């Protein structure tokens, strides 16, 4: 089963994607989509070195919601910063040690940081132990780190890494 469907989540995603692409849910398209959703992961399986184990899907879903809301907030905040007086921007680099370890979770965290208000992950250390973050209002780095930890890193740890 594992060799036939190496990545069931991926397969499901692909089927959905196919239906999105063709904008149709006719039986023919579902069949074709299923076929592709089966074949493509089979071919690309070896590119996925890390199997993603979602321990707490609901938590992940909640995190997604948080992020989406934060993106909206981020944009409004950024809009105000851009249009407003430039003096309000007090940027700075923040060094943030990471607690997440897995490839996927580290990458996800980095992306979330970038998409959410005022922060941007600028560099990941080659040993993946820390992140350099650029913050538009980076006077209080500890606060920013704490917020990131609480809002994003912990849920990620819980959902993807800790047993």
């Amino acid at each position: 089963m594992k060799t036939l469907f190496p990545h069931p989540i991926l397969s499901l995603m692909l089927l959905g994607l196919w239906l999105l692409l063709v904008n149709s849910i006719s039986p023919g398209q579902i069949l074709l989509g299923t076929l592709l959703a089966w074949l493509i992961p089979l071919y690309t399986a070896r590119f996925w070195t890390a199997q993603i184990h979602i321990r707490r899907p609901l938590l992940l879903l909640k995190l997604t919601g948080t992020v989406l809301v934060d993106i909206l907030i981020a944009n409004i905040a950024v809009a105000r910063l851009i249009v407003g007086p430039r003096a309000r921007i007090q940027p700075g680099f923040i060094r943030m040690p990471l607690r997440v370890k897995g490839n996927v979770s580290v990458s996800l965290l980095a992306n979330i940081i970038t998409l959410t208000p005022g922060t941007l992950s600028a560099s990941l250390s080659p040993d993946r132990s820390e992140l350099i973050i650029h913050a538009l209002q980076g006077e209080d780095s500890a606060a920013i780190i704490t917020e990131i930890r609480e809002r994003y890193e912990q849920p990620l740890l819980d959902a993807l890494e800790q047993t």
Partner: protein
Amino acid sequence: MTNLPLIVLIPFIGAMLPPWAVMTGRPWSAWVTGGVALAALALTIVPGLSVMQGETLIWQQDWFPALGLSLAFRLDGLALLFVLMILIIGLLVILYARWYLAEQDPMGRFYAYLLLFMGSMLGLVMSENLIQLLMFWELTSISSFLLISYWRQRADARQGARIALAITGGGGLALLGGILLLGEIVGSYDLSAVLAAGKSIHADPLYVPALVLILLGVFTKSAQFPFHFWLPHAMAAPTPVSAYLHSATMVKAGVFLLARLFPALSGSEAWTWIVAPVGMLTLLIGAYNAFFKHDLKGLLAYSTISHLGLITLLFGIGTPLAAVAGVFHIMNHATFKASLFMAAGIIDHEAGTRDMRRLAGLWKFMPQTGLLAMIAAAAMAGVPLLNGFLSKEMFFEKTVYMASFAESFWLLPVLATIAGALAVAYSLRFIHDVFFNGTPTDLPRTPHDPSRWMLVPVEVLVVICIAVGILPSLTFGPLLGVAVGAVLQGPAPDYSLKVWHGFTPALGMSMLALAGGALIYAIRQPLFRWHETLFGRIDARALFEGFERALLWSSRALDQLIHRRSLQFMLVVLISAALVMLARGFWGMPITGSATLLPIDPVSTSAAICLAAGAIGTVVWHRQRWTALVMLSVVGLIIALAFVKLSAPDLALTQLSVEMVTIVLLLLALHFLPKQTPRESSLPRKLRDLLLALLGGGATGLLTWAVLTRPYDSISGWMLENSVPGGGGTNVVNVILVDFRGFDTLGEITVLAIAAIGIYMMLRDLRLDVPLTDDQGRPWSSDVNPLILATFSRLLLPLALMVAVFIFLRGHNLPGGGFIAGLIISVALVMQYLANGIAWTKLRLSGELHPLIGLGLLLATATGLGSWYFGYPFLTSTHGHLHLPVIGDLELASVMLFDLGVMMVVIGITLVILIRLGRIGLVQRRVAIDDSDLNR
């Protein structure tokens, strides 16, 4: 009759024998060659007898009627005379050469060349067709080139041969021009027709150019002034060659032609005023130089020039009797000059030198040779009772006769006598300097008479000289008669071949010449000094070499000017040519047409601004190459947008995909190139380029404007109508690509496949320095594959593959298709390489990419070939709907297979190119690491 061509053919075929025969033994090559010449001579007997009866034999075979070229041989008196000379003297030379050639000289080659030459001469004199004549004429030039350069390791031989070839070959080309004009005048190249057309030829406006060109041929071949200088240098040939070529054959070809075309060309003022003065000048210059040459063969060479001048002068005079004298002197000169050359060869052979300043008193050592030489030289000097005397008398007579026509012509007999005296003087010198005049000092070896057989040819010739000199009408008489008849193409005039004509002015001139000659010889020492100071430095070869050097120098100078190996120059020329042609095409024509135009909107305007910024930015930053590349990609993006806006979604997709791959490609390449371009164009150069660029841009802009403002109508209406019924697809562009014009697409993927193969070839063993820092000197980041990128790019792969399948499947009906799908897959895979590195990715890609190219090409071609099975032309498509339960209608078309082939080729090629290019650095680095391991 049919053996006429055989006479010519035999020597050519025979020319293959000596190199074989020489393997049996050296002499065999001579005997075989002699046999060949004898065979040709034997074949001449029967037709020769008819000719002696006054017949003209013609053998003709159509060859190339459109050109007017036929295989046509003619044997009349003149031809017979020459055939006999060529064959008989040829036989004697063959015999002579047998003993002349040294052990180390390759004999087979010599005789082969000689037979080639003999055949060419025979063909020349027996040609009935003028173009055929010309072919043999040039063959004589070439075979004589081979003969003269026979001793190829000697510089003078090579040079002499080249000079001879240049002059006579060049003359031959002029002659070709003349003959073509003559043929145009007459309407035929058949000699019979030409000879019969004398009157109309003279009346034609092309007569003078034709005459001049033909005479150029004649004069060069017969070494007439000012083309005479090749002949002395041809003396570098082995003496048998000189004896053959410069007595009876090669140089006589010119005067032969003069005689041959005499009825057609002579008799005009132009003829007389060109031919006679050239002859006279040559006569004098030759005789003068002959006297001052210290080299025996040099003397003979200039004497030959002089005698040829005499013959030319006689034909130039143009009266029938002068022609008789001319023909007669051709015969006489051949006999005494051949024997003299042979004698000179013997002297050279025996004494080891030909320098008359070193030779002396040889009479004691080689009396037989001395006697023969003496008689032959006397004939050359015009001593009575020898053949040379007779024709020279006739010549003197003609000059006297001419003097009676005009007041100023008194000069003719005077000059003739002076030339006669000089001839006597150099003949005397030839004999006295060599055989008497004291005793020889420091000769390389002790001379003695040569072997019996080497003297036989000389003896035969000398006997002829005497026999003709005493009994002219019994010996040469009949042959001269028919020859003259052929030359004049009518009855010969009354002439008498007698030794004694009574006390005529000519006899007086002869006596005067003999006495004068003796006097000149007597005062030779002061004359030599005088000559040395006046003309000593004039050296024809140096002149020719100077000419050749000048030619070389000027052509090299021009060559460097024209053929600069500069790409910029080539491009400037090409672009200028295109501009000139565009301007010429447009000139005087309205630019703007009458079509209704589309309004401009702000989005398009700002897109155009982006495009302009991108293009200009690429130019402005072309020194910062990376930045230029960024600017360039803006242009590509805007072009794609334009395609979208202007209703070409397929184009937009293709443009975007290709653009992407191109940028990656350029970045890959840029890594191994300097990141900056040096400033090296001068301001004028920049201005020139700018001007050209603006003109070019203006031209294409105007062209675009001109077309776009015109209404039009095209064949594409048919394509829109037939796309669904004929091609089975609603995406007309795609239907055109895979069906209506599928052949273009097949060609296009072939181009891609070849490009990949070429690139693959170029990249093999490519070694380039991998920069260890960027252009600012910063070492590279050690984070090879940033984790975040790697993680997400892996996620992208299946998505991109899905999109590609989608794009491929819908291509026939909606924007998309195999090509774009292929590029999407490629880009997705390239992304993996970008994010994860080659080694990582390669391990995870199942299968090789290379075969995709061949398989794709094969699939596309095979799809095309499939239609053959149904009896339709290549690439005929078929399509239809397959109705499946549940799934519904499935649109299937054979072109999808074709498109699949396209897709495979595209994937294979893109990846092969990019990955190969990427691997250069990898390979280099691995080498570097290995090296550092060793150092540790």
